[in-house]
Structure formats: C-alpha cells, structure tokens
C-alpha cells in the first residue's frame, strides 16, 4: 500500500491544483492575520472558511482523482497487489496531499505571525486537526461515490450534491425541524442531528474549544450542557473518527467486489 500511496502522493504533488489549493490557504492566512491583527478572530474566520471549503475540495478532488486515474488503477489491478492496498493507497495519497496543502498553507503565515508565542496555538492546532479530519472524511466519501458510479458525470453530480446537502441543506432542515417541534424536548434530537453531520460536528467541536457561547447556538449549548467541554471534545473526536472509518471500510469492501 505504501508504494501506491507514494506514487499517488507524488503524482498529486506534481499537479498544478495542489499548488493552487496551497496558495489559496497561504493567501487567506496572510490576509487574515496581517490585516486583522486579532488572532482569535482570525481563527474564527478561518473556521468558517475551512468548514465549508475543505469538504468541497475533498469531495471534488477525490472524485476527480479516482476517475482520472482509472487507467492507472487498471494497470495496477493486473499486478500482484491487493485491491484494498491499491484503493486505500490512492485514497491516502489524495487525502494526505490535500492535508499537506492545508497545513503548510495556513501554518506558514501563522508561524510567521508568531503563533508559538501566543495562546492561540491550541485553537489553531484544533482547527488544523478538524481540517484534516474533514479532508479524510470527504475524500473517503468521494471515493465511495466514485466506486459506486461508473458514469463520471453522475459521480460528480452526486459528490457535489453530497457536499451541498451536508454543508447547507442539512442545517436548513435541522433548523426547520427545531422550529417545527419546539414544543417538544429537542436535546436528544439535536445532539444526534449534530453527530450525523461531520461539518456540524466540526463546527461544534471548534466552538466548544474556543469557548464562545454566543456563537455556539442551540446545538452547541446542548452539547456543552450534556457533555461538558472536555467530554464533548472527546465525543466529537470519536464521532469524527467513525466518520472516517466507516467510509474507508466501505472502500475496501466495495473495491473487493467490483469488476474492472
């Protein structure tokens, strides 16, 4: 698997898009830090960008990479390699190179700004960890979609819809249901609702850590009341890990049964 990972990773590292993605974060980091001068505000703004953008890029890159490397995959399948190592290697190649762009793109301006001397280092680390989780989750979901759809256009459409649903529509439905059923106790519902969406989960996780009650919203407040800050953090991490593990398991399962 490591060999496949290596080839996929270097293949992507040579691609223009990795640099565009990296440059975007670099620019965003520089603008936010040096024009804003307030580190914790910069972290919050970054959170809002990361939570929407990372899933989008992860999904699109994942689907794109899978379909573009179809020929490569077929070549590999005839070699004495396990199917699971081929697909997991490719998946990790994409996810790691995207995470690298994120870490370096944001890390460089923050370090230049003097992150190591400030208290925001944990907030910032958490932000990066969540970003990496989201990359792992959405790239895995994208690979799942691509594996299940031979048709490229359909695969792309499903991937975009998935992102749109989890990033925007889900919140809308969630909010509507909270308003609709406001006469009933909604603690459990909103807890489950948050856990079932990795984007919401990440947002709650970061806000819990930043401890900004004003931004927490209803679900965040329930989360905090229910679990407390520390347990809340741990539970969110467990849920995020599950969100990585389950799609990855499906990749190995699905790839074993597929015809090429």
């Amino acid at each position, binding site marked *: 698997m490591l*060999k496949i990972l290596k*080839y996929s990773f270097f*293949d992507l590292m*040579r691609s223009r898009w990795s640099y565009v993605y990296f440059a975007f974060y670099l620019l965003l980091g520089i603008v936010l830090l040096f024009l804003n001068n307030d580190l914790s505000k910069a972290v919050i703004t970054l959170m809002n960008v990361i939570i929407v953008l990372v899933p989008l890029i992860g999904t699109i890159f994942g689907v794109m990479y899978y379909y573009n*490397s*179809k*020929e*490569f995959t*077929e*070549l*590999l*399948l*005839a*070699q*004495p*390699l*396990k*199917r699971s190592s081929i697909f997991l290697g490719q998946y990790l190649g994409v996810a790691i190179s995207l995470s690298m762009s994120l870490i370096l793109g944001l890390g460089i301006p923050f370090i230049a700004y003097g992150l190591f001397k400030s208290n925001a280092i944990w907030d910032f680390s958490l932000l990066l960890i969540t970003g990496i989780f989201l990359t792992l989750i959405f790239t895995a979901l994208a690979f799942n979609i691509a594996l299940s759809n031979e048709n490229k256009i359909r695969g792309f459409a499903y991937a975009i819809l998935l992102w749109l649903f989890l990033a925007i529509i889900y919140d809308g439905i969630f909010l509507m249901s909270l308003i609709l059923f406001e006469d009933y106790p909604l603690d459990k519902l909103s807890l489950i609702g948050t856990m079932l969406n990795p984007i919401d989960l990440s947002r709650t996780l970061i806000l819990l850590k930043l401890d900004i009650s004003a931004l927490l919203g209803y679900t965040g407040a329930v989360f905090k009341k229910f679990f407390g800050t520390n347990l809340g953090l741990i539970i969110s991490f467990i849920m995020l890990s599950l969100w990585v593990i389950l799609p990855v398991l499906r990749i190995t399962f699905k790839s*074993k*049964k*597929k*015809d*090429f």
Partner: protein
Amino acid sequence: MVSIENLHKKFNKNVVLNGIDLSIIEGGIFAILGPNGSGKTTLIKSILGMVIPNKGTINVLGENIKNSSHYRHKIDYLPQIANFPSNLKVKELIKMIKDLRSHTNEDQRLIQLFKLAPFLDKKLGNLSGGTKQKVNLVLTFMFDSPLIILDEPTTGLDPIALIRLKDLIQTEKDKGKTILITSHIMSFVEEVSDEIVFILEGQIYFKGSILELKNKTNQSDFEHAIASILTNNHA
C-alpha cells in the same frame, strides 16, 4: 496450469460467460477466439482477478485465485488497449512497474528490440498507438513469469515490430511457458498458436488444434473454418 470450472459471469442482465469449463496444460500457445462480445476479455480478466465471477472456480498453478493476489506474480498480462496514465514518462512507468513487482534487467533488451530509446523521456499521453503498444509489450515481457496472457497483442504494430513480437512469443514458448492469446488477426493466430479455444455465447464451442477445427468444419482454410462456425451458428 489454468483450470476453470463452471464459470458464470453476467453484467447486470447481460450474460457474458455461461458455464465455461476449460483446462489449459503447461507449455504451449493457446489462442482464445470468438466473435466480438463473446466474453474473451471477460474470461481473461476473470483469470487475472479483475472481474469477479458470479459462480465457478479458477485455479492458476494449482492455487484457487479467489481473494488472492499473490498468484499474479506468476502472470504477465498485456492489456487490450494500452491505457496508461498520460502524465507519466515512459521510463517512469517502467521503473514504477519494476518497483511494484520485482527487479529485472530484461527491460533494456526489450527497449532495444522495439527501438524505444528515443521515447523514454516522452510522456505516455504524447505517444502514438503503436508506440504505446510497444511500451505495453516491454512491460509485459520484462518479467519472467510462467504464464503470459496477451490480449490483442498485434494492435497498432508495424510489420517489423510484429516480426519481433512473433519471435519473442516463440522464445518464451521454447522456455516452456504457457501463453494465452486473443486476437482477431487469423493469420497471426494460425501462425503462432498450438491450440485454439473458441468461445461462442459465453461457452466453449471448440477446443483443439487448428487441423481438428478444419476437419470439423470441412474447410481447408483456417479463416473460413472460423467464419463457418459463425455463420452456421448465427444463421
């Protein structure tokens, strides 16, 4: 070498292989023939584990291939259409496949044989179909495996390369290897193969030597013998 029992495969509702029983002994050149869409490539891909059969067992060198990948060390496979990652250079691809399988020095000889040296630094996406096929041949023949599977090996090759390919196949046969070939070029099949396996509608219609086929169909010419099978069955 390869034994296949009761192999079934369908894609959605389209039945491609319908109970194939085939056993291929060690040593010699076997041509797998059949009309378009008869399931030749599916059969080959099943042997390679790229297509998962719905039913049936396949043994390669005495080992059941189900859920196994290690047996592919013993197979060299030439895919039908040379679809390579287009942003890789020829020498990078060769290096990569060597890295993934095992070390070999045969590639240098093959590169010379097919006169590929000027193309080594070119990207695969910029190569002509014939040159891609030559790269494909290098990748296949550079390992020393007991079973060689060639899917339409002649596609796009010029006459010189074709002669080289025939020599190459002959040398491998003389080493005692088993070679499976599919091709639509009947003269090529007639020239190289020891035995033919004819697939029709997902089943083995005929297995034997070319002479036996000619006798069976009462045709003196191999191409006509094949054509007569097809017309008699589709009339």
